[in-house]
């Protein structure tokens, strides 16, 4: 019998369900299917269902349900998760200006990769990235699918501030940061599409399972996306 999934406490009001220990679209699909199954149960005492790459955290209200009862329920939901239909995958195409002041790491990343900056832009912008899950702070989308020939380490000293909308990669991962944040990623371009707005619901446009690409456009066209939401670029 497989050692996965494993269920364990994560503090006194969360349960962590672990699947195979790797970043993989199939494993992540299992996580999302279980998340949707649990949410569709509307079970009293279950508060939040938080999918990640290969784990699912379920937070609960201890006066309403306790750990042994919840884990027993989860065992049952694991059996049902295979039957649930995942929502249709959406593809966002966010206009992106590459290089220059908007992509301060483009030339250096190209040098490390022994590619021209144009080749880096071409390979990166042709990629459709999978949104594995949303997290960190202010709705950061964890993107998977970075091509093998774009593997560059993180900066040795992270930047104290990177403007929101910056698009880049490091260590096999890619992201578009939603708001101004410190970061050690290599940023090669920027999109001006609004990726986070706490005055609206939902505050971020993506859900786990969506796909995102970053087609190259001239600066003027990229700037025209200011104030627009990602749903305008489906």
């Amino acid at each position, binding site marked *: 019998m497989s050692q996965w999934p494993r269920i364990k406490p994560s*503090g*006194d009001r969360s349960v962590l369900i672990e699947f195979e220990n790797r970043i993989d679209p199939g494993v992540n699909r299992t996580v999302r299917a279980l998340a949707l199954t649990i949410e569709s149960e509307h079970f009293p005492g279950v508060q939040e269902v938080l999918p990640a790459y290969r784990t699912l955290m379920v937070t609960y209200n201890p006066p309403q349900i306790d750990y042994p009862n919840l884990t027993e329920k989860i065992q049952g939901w694991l059996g049902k998760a295979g039957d649930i239909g995942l929502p249709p995958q959406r593809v966002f195409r966010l206009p992106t200006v590459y290089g220059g002041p908007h992509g301060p790491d483009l030339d250096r990343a190209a040098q490390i990769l022994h590619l021209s900056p144009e080749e880096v832009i071409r390979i990166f912008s042709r990629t459709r990235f999978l949104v594995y899950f949303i997290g960190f702070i*202010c709705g*950061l989308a964890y993107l998977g699918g970075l091509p093998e020939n774009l593997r560059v380490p993180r900066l040795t000293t992270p930047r104290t501030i990177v403007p929101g909308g910056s698009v880049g990669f490091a260590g096999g991962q890619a992201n578009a940061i939603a708001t101004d944040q410190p970061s050690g990623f290599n940023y090669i371009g920027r999109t001006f599409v609004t990726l986070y707005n*706490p005055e609206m619901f939902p*505050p971020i446009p993506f859900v786990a399972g969506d796909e995102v690409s970053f087609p190259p456009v001239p600066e003027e066209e990229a700037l025209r996306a200011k104030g627009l939401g990602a749903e305008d670029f489906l």
Partner: protein
Amino acid sequence: MKAFEVINPGVYTMLQDLGRPGYMRYGVPASGASDRFSAQTANLLVGNRPEAAILETALFRLELLALSNLTVAVAGGDLSPSVNKTPFPMWQAVSIQPGDRISFRGRKKGFRAFLAVRGGFSGPRYLGSRSVFSRGLMGNPLRTAEVLETEDSAVHHPFNVPLPLNLIPDFSPRPTLRVILGPQEDRFSPKGLETFLSSEYTVSPQSDRMGYRLEGPRIEHTQGADIISEAIARGAVQVPGDGLPIIMLWDAQVSGGYTKIANVITADHDLLAQTMPGEFLRFKAVTLEEARAALRHQELRLADVKKVISGWAAVSPTYP
């Protein structure tokens, strides 16, 4: 209604209510008052619902000029609250007049104080909550000369009874925090676990509402400090590669890729809010049943506060 003008914004002073749970899946931490018992009690003392917005401040220096006739209450850590430089009692409602100056003149016990005003502070709501979380573009800490307003209140005048002493928490300066081990306790050596559970740690000056960084003996991993990123529960004790624990708190990021050795139980988060940089703390492993009983105990104490304030209490409350 205009309530206060900010003369000195003090240290980390901001509006908080009970936060915005339910948005972690969008990358937004729940935030909310760091010491929930004190914040809710301050509200109840002035006749507000427990979830009204209060001011959370730390250490000292906050100074406010009253612009109207107000009823206020201060609960939490003792930061020497005064009206016109005369100390006033905490854990009870106090009436003040236009021109009065409220100031917090120095920390005596605890770390954070909560000031409630009758009607509750108004201010923009983000995702259903007035809790300030500036990193998430949801409001800002207080600024000098800012004017704070209250909701127009038709709140009745509360019974002005002081709380019985046994309902007021004691913020001991060297707390032992109860933890549930895991979820990655198997990524630490037996020696590492022993270090964590037997050592005294100091709260680093680089601590804030996001997390408490701790200084002390380094905790030994077995196979590195990194995991594939996953959700982080409030109270999680992350141990990155340097072996020094970080407790993830109210405004912490919602996901991360470091091993978590344990999780501080919910009932002890208030205590952590009252522990300041430079102070010491220890960890003790407990069971989920013990954590549940502790949470129940905390809820009963708040229920007793409600009874006393509503006038519906036996002469000597059942707590503890």
